[in-house]
Structures are given as structure tokens and as C-alpha cells.
């Protein structure tokens, strides 16, 4: 198997039972594995709720390390709609010409820089830096802020080995609190100031609500983007012809990005809390237990995708759920797509080949399943044109 491959550990369970089971900190999860079932459950917000105890729908659960409700992600319809409407235009800004130009400049600079080096550790030395710098555009804060975020490492709530880390979370919370206070004193054009001005049903958002939006912005798009970018580099390293294909056919970039997202599925799954006794895949699930919508498994469902375990860069029909599905689809998807699009084009333009020197896979332990989601470390050499 190629080093860049992300195998599908769910296939047998998906085809035979349709679900899997994992015990997450004594709060078990029934994982929904089929594409159709995942979409149906994602759509059914009345039975499968997001607005549960803050942190509980995330797997591994974060209930022990946070009380702040992440917004709009941990709120159900109909309230969800009002919150989403406040943040949606802001998170669509990556489509604006100025934003795209600034992001292109950032990505060009980092690619130019790694091309001068003999070896680059991609996770910390490329992906995290790229993500953190791009985040300054999403928040509309000074570029220098990225240095602080880079120093936090790849996960805001977890330290090495995936252990949830309350102290680490507090660093982020204090940082956000401080920035909200600064924006109150000195309003500007950043995300904090926009949220301070926003109203919902004629009322201003509370400080806790603002914090909830910002925490989501930091945590939702961090390891996911780091994984997507790192996996893309590994993929191109082992498939130099695809870089050439992208160079010769730049019009397929959009399709390529969707396909890479499908194949990588940077977020394995997302939980929901069951509001009443029900059944999924002929399996009883009890009220107040949890299910998870396993995007990674749905994205390899052979009933929907031909040759699901192959990357087909110009795959035409690709109803993947890599950015989730239904009301709670990924708020940061526009930003993520733009990053990946520009990255793919920049690499195709400037890089001929990439050599993998060393790597350590990041394998998630989901009890029954072990899933490679990306890399803890990936050292490569970029070769320019």
C-alpha cells in the first residue's frame, strides 16, 4: 500500500450491519456508516440533536473540558437559523477578490519558502503555519497573530496522543476573552467586533455567545485543515502525474478539491444525542444515548461512489459529505475550499515532485475501527520547476 493511502476501515461493518459501536469515556456511541443513513440522520435534527450538553456531540466528548456552547454548531433549529444567518456572510468572505488575492499571496510565499529547503516537516512546518496565517484572514486580524497560534501546536484541546487537555483549552479561552475585551474598547473590522455589533431578535449577543462562535472558528478549522493539507502533500508526492494533470488542466481544480476532501474526510465523524428511543439500521438506540454520523465511512460507500478507494481527481458526480450534511454543514467550508483550491493550483504551478523522507501516521482509535486520518509527522523535500 502506498504511504499516502487512507484505507477504509469501515467497509465490512458498513456492508453487513450498517453501524459500528465505540465506547467513548463511558458514553458509548453508535456510529452510522452508510451514506444514505448518515444523510438521513444528519437531516433529522429532531431525533438526533446538536443542542445537547456542550461538548457532548463531539467524539471524543469534550464535556469534561468545556462549558461554552459552540455556536451555531451546538444549537438546533429553529434557533440555529438566526445564529447561522449572523455568521454566514462573514464566512463567505473567502469568495471576495481581495480575500482570494491575500490568501494566494500567503500560499505562494510559503510554497516558495519550502522550495528552498532540503527537508520540511509538513504538519508543523507547512500545514499548521499555512492554516494559522489563513485564519488571520478569516478573523480579519493582524498577520502577526498567526505566530501565537502556531506556538499552540496542532490541536487546541488535545495534547500529544489525543488526550483531552483542559489547560490547553484555557489558554485559548483566555486569549479569546482578552480579544473580546480589546474589541469592546476599540472596535475594528475583525470577527470579534462584527459579533459585538450583531443582534439576534433585537438583542445583542452575550459575551458567552460570542465566545462560542470564536471557539468554534478556532477549533473547527484547525486539525481538519492541517490534515487536508498534509494528506494532499503526501498524495501529490506519490502521484507526481496528478500534479502535471492539474497543471495542464487547471479547470479541474474544483473537482479535484472535492475529491481530495471526499477521500481524506478530514473529520471522521460528528455525534448527535438521541432525543427519544428509536432505531437506526434495525438497531435500537435509546433516548439520551449518542450516535455519530461517520462522514469518513459514508464517503467510501460503494453504493454511491464508483471505485470509492481511488482518488479520481476529475470525478464528476461526487455527493460526498466531507463537509457534513444538512443544516449543520461546515461553516468554514468556503474558507477551506479556497485554501485547498489555491494550494492545489500553486503546487501544480511551482512544484514538479515531492519526495517523502520520513513519516508517522496519525491513527485514530475508534475501538472496533482504527482509522488513519493523516500524519503526526511527514518530512518531505519539495522539488521546484
Amino acid at each position, binding site marked *: 500500500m502506498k504511504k499516502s493511502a487512507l484505507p477504509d476501515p469501515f467497509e465490512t461493518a458498513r456492508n453487513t450491519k450498517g453501524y459500528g459501536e465505540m465506547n467513548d469515556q463511558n458514553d458509548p456511541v453508535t456510529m452510522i456508516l452508510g451514506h444514505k443513513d448518515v*444523510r438521513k440522520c444528519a437531516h433529522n435534527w429532531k431525533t438526533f440533536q446538536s443542542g445537547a450538553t456542550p461538548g457532548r456531540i463531539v467524539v471524543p466528548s469534550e464535556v469534561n473540558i468545556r462549558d461554552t456552547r459552540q455556536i451555531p454548531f451546538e444549537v438546533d433549529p429553529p434557533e440555529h*437559523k438566526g445564529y447561522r444567518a449572523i455568521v454566514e456572510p462573514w464566512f463567505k468572505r473567502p469568495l471576495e477578490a481581495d480575500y482570494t488575492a491575500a490568501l494566494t499571496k500567503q500560499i505562494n510565499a510559503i510554497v516558495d519558502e519550502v522550495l528552498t529547503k532540503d527537508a520540511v516537516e509538513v504538519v508543523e512546518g507547512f500545514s499548521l503555519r499555512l492554516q494559522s496565517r489563513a485564519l488571520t484572514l478569516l478573523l480579519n486580524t493582524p498577520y502577526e497573530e498567526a505566530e501565537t497560534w502556531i506556538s499552540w501546536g496542532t490541536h487546541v484541546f488535545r495534547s500529544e496522543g489525543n488526550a483531552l487537555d483542559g489547560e490547553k483549552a484555557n489558554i485559548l479561552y483566555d486569549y479569546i476573552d482578552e480579544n473580546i475585551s480589546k474589541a469592546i474598547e476599540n472596535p475594528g473590522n475583525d470577527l470579534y467586533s462584527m459579533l459585538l455589533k450583531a443582534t439576534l431578535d433585537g438583542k445583542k449577543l452575550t459575551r458567552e455567545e460570542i465566545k462560542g462562535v470564536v471557539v468554534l472558528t478556532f477549533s473547527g478549522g484547525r486539525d481538519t485543515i492541517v490534515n487536508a493539507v498534509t494528506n494532499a502533500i503526501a498524495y501529490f508526492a506519490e502521484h507526481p502525474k496528478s500534479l502535471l494533470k492539474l497543471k495542464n488542466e487547471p479547470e479541474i481544480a*474544483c*473537482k479535484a478539491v472535492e475529491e481530495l476532501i471526499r477521500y481524506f474526510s478530514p473529520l471522521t465523524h460528528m455525534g448527535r444525542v438521541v432525543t427519544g428511543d428509536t432505531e437506526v439500521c434495525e438497531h435500537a438506540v435509546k433516548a439520551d444515548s449518542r450516535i455519530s454520523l461517520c462522514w469518513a465511512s459514508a464517503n467510501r460507500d460503494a453504493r454511491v461512489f464508483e471505485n470509492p478507494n481511488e482518488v479520481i481527481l476529475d*470525478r464528476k*458526480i*461526487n455527493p460526498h459529505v466531507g*463537509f457534513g450534511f444538512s443544516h449543520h454543514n461546515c461553516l468554514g467550508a468556503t474558507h477551506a*475550499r479556497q485554501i485547498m483550491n489555491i494550494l492545489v493550483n500553486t503546487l501544480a504551478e511551482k512544484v514538479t515532485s515531492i519526495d517523502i523522507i520520513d513519516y508517522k501516521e496519525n491513527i485514530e482509535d475508534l475501538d472496533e475501527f482504527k482509522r488513519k486520518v493523516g500524519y503526526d509527522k511527514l518530512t518531505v523535500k519539495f522539488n521546484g520547476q
Partner: protein
Amino acid sequence: MAKITFITTDNKTITLEGTSGSVMQLAVDNSVPGIDGDCGGVCSCATCHVHVAPEHQTKTGEATEIETDMLELNDYANEQSRLCCQIEISDALDGIVLQVAESD
């Protein structure tokens, strides 16, 4: 060359001319409100949802199974629903009227 008319959710009429590509791309290139085309046309985002008037449905043809599955879970879908990234522009579409669907 096909003339394609979009009626937006606030009842504005926008008529555009296209020769090739998808109807979604034409709408996005001309900033038709309510057609975002987030996924670039691969049938994964449903942000290109339109309703085709019954008298024009023969021009657009039928939705594929994958498209139908996508629309099945859309709260604003009905028998006239299509994802317009899946409608290719050709002369056959000339004169078609598409109502941009509501979304959350």
C-alpha cells in the same frame, strides 16, 4: 445559444444567455442571488437548487438517482426540483424559466 430566465426568491427576473457549461455556472458567473454553487458542480452541496416549471421539464430532462437522493432530504424540494449544476446548457434549453428555490 439559449436564453435562460431565473426568478429569484424575492421575485426578480434575470435573463441570461449561455452556450455551454452548466446552468449553475452561468448563474454563478452572473451572480444570480440564491445560486451559490459551493461544490463547483459535483452534486454535493445543493446550493444550486431550482424549480423547473412543468411545461419546461421536457427540456431539462430527468434528474439522476444521485440528484434525486440529494433532493429527497431538502426541505424546499418538490417534483419540480433540480440541482442546476446537473443541467447542461444547450440550445434545447432556450426559453426556459427557473425559479430559484428557498434555502435555510
